């Protein structure tokens, strides 16, 4: 099932009046604290409206920024609200997706939503002897290690698992609440992987900061890197050339292909299907080698630059290698789709409903497999995507099988997009002239920009603010993993047992690094 979204004209929310010019992909508006709740409620009701991110910047006063994606209107709306006191209206009461960000803002800036809802620990470790630097002021009280009440017939208990867990996966601490086999509840703690990527970017030029942004989540180096580069370019008023943007799109689709192949291999591993895993890994290795010959790196590091790309794709290698690599993936997929014992294992496992996907602000293939046809390549096209018109693959069931089907449809679409990019000559013959000098570009202080890209896991968002000298005063990076881990809890709770958890984790294909960046 695929859907190409028509560009509809509808009445814009009242707050949009006077916010930027019509047709601009990003509108910015200022709003007083007193109006924040009413406007949030209106935007939450607006068709295609979702609270994509919430973060704070500056310290005196702290300015709260809510990024709304108005997908049907093809616009992002940034609402800036100065918060004078230590409290602001609780947005998560209206848009539940905001809760994790409210916790994060409390830890980093010391301001909290109104009410007495406990705010969870996100990035600060509980060890008393570790004091991490913050982006703003310290909170009055330390964040809580909140565990929801979890007693089922008086027999449920919490089974701690991690952070050192299975082999060759990232560290992650699970609190599994169970009455024996069925999962009653699940908590995830990730503070042990928080590397302070946003803090590190402060004082650097955007080009310098790109090094750590790419390594915030290595499996989304292009998705996150493009979002960050686009944000910096918007702040600096730079427009990369068409060939460079097509080069980015080629890298992004290659990133999607290898990630989906890796997810399918992981799904087979989680199901104990060694032959399927080997078949998917043959395809995965082919894609990684294709990345290496086309862009010079198996994981596409160091491809992007602020203002363009650093490495021009090797078109001949791409043209020659793509069909064989995709052929291996198709071969594995055809065999898997004919293996009933495998499909039965995925069916009805880890269900995310359409309602949950909307409420929790889920993105990417997890949302699309739950019937939400959101894809920034179609909804907020940049670079070549407005011409390519990517088809958005969706499924209705919301289970692991639906996510597998979405991955396969997206892989086919990525190959089509790459072939179109090769065929139309959009990739040109070189990388153009990227703006890769590390020298800062002076300008008015407070210049800022928003950037986005559809990473393999879904919408990556970045926001960059520059000071007078052209160095970063605040960088915000919101990889898709930040959003989708929230749906993971709910998916695991939906009538699943312990052995379903690895399958659900593989089908979400998230990284801990992406959320604990």
């Amino acid at each position, binding site marked *: 099932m695929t859907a190409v979204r028509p560009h509809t004209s509808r009445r814009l929310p009242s707050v949009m009046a006077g916010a930027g010019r019509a047709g601009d992909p990003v509108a910015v508006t200022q709003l007083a604290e007193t109006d924040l709740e009413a406007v949030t409620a209106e935007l939450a009701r607006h068709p295609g409206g979702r609270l994509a991110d919430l973060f704070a910047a500056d310290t005196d006063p702290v300015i709260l920024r809510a990024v709304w994606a108005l997908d049907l209107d093809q616009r992002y709306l940034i609402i800036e609200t100065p918060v004078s006191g230590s409290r602001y209206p609780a947005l998560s009461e209206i848009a539940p997706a905001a809760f994790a960000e409210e916790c994060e803002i409390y830890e980093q800036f010391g301001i909290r939503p109104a009410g007495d809802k406990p705010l969870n620990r996100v990035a600060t470790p509980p060890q008393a002897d570790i004091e991490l630097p913050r982006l703003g002021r310290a909170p009055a009280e330390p964040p809580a290690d909140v565990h929801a009440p979890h007693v089922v017939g008086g027999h449920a208990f919490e089974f701690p698992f991690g952070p050192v867990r299975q082999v*060759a996966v*990232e560290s992650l601490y699970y609190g599994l609440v169970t009455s024996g086999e069925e999962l009653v509840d699940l908590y995830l703690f990730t503070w042990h992987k928080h590397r302070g990527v946003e803090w590190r970017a402060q004082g650097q030029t955007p080009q310098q900061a790109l090094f750590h942004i790419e390594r915030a989540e*290595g499996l989304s180096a292009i998705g996150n890197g493009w979002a960050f580069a686009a944000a910096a370019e918007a702040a600096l008023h730079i427009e990369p050339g068409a060939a460079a943007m097509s080069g980015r799109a080629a890298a992004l689709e290659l990133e999607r292909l290898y990630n989906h192949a890796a997810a399918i291999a992981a799904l087979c591993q989680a199901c104990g299907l060694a032959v399927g895993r080997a078949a998917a*890994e043959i395809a995965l290795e082919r894609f990684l080698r294709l990345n290496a010959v086309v862009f010079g790196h*198996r994981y596409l590091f160091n491809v992007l630059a602020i203002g363009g790309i650093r490495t021009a794709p090797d078109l001949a290698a791409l043209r020659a290698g793509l069909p064989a690599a995709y052929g291996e993936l198709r071969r594995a997929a055809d065999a898997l789709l004919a293996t009933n014992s495998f499909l039965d294992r995925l069916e009805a496992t880890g269900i995310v409903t359409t309602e949950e996907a909307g409420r929790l602000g889920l993105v990417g293939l997890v949302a699309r497999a739950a019937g939400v046809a959101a894809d920034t390549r179609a909804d907020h096209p940049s670079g070549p995507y407005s011409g390519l018109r990517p088809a958005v693959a969706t499924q209705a069931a919301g289970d692991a099988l639906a996510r597998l089907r979405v991955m396969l449809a997206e892989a086919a679409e990525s190959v089509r997009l790459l072939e179109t990019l090769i065929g139309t000559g959009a990739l040109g013959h070189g990388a153009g002239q990227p703006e890769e000098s590390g020298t800062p570009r002076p300008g008015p202080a407070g210049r800022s920009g928003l950037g986005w890209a559809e990473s393999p896991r879904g919408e990556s968002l970045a926001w960059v603010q520059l000071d007078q000298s052209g160095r970063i005063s605040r960088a915000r990076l919101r990889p898709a993993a930040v959003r989708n881990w929230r749906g993971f809890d709910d998916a695991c709770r939906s009538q699943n047992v312990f052995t379903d958890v690895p399958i659900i984790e593989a089908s979400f294909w998230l990284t801990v690094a992406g959320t604990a960046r």
Partner: protein
Amino acid sequence: MSTTTAGGGPVTTEAEAAAAEQLRSAVARQFGRSLHIRTLDTGSCAACEQEIRMLAAPHYDLHRLGLFFTPAPRHADLLLVTGPMLRAFAAAARKTYEAMPGPKLVVATGACALGGVYQPDAFSYGSADQVLPVDVWIPGCPPSPLALLHGLLVAVGRLADKVSGLSFVAGASS
């Protein structure tokens, strides 16, 4: 071949040295057929983990070399450490290392663990050797599966050295 202590007395006799050498080759043979690896992510970006998983893929197939992954540190001979050793994770890293039986090896894997990505600061120690005794370093960001295999094969030799340095004579000091 004989080894002497700082005081001049022999630690191993000729016969013992020959036995140790026999053991060394036996261990090389033995571990060559079942060296067990536990991985440890101390703050990586997930790319090193992906490359480590590729070791088991058909293109590389580390099992044919007698190397295996184990989820239990108590069964592990070798700790494959990725990431810049975040301070918040150091306690878990130490506990994992301490849970392993000796003789054991630590292999720092990837640019982060080697100190090439993060400076020592409030978040991280900056490299694995600040917390764990590293025996072998594997560079790369991330190291390719072939680089990992090469590093592991170097590590097997180092483990054999470690074992041959042990004294198996009751009452002897080393």
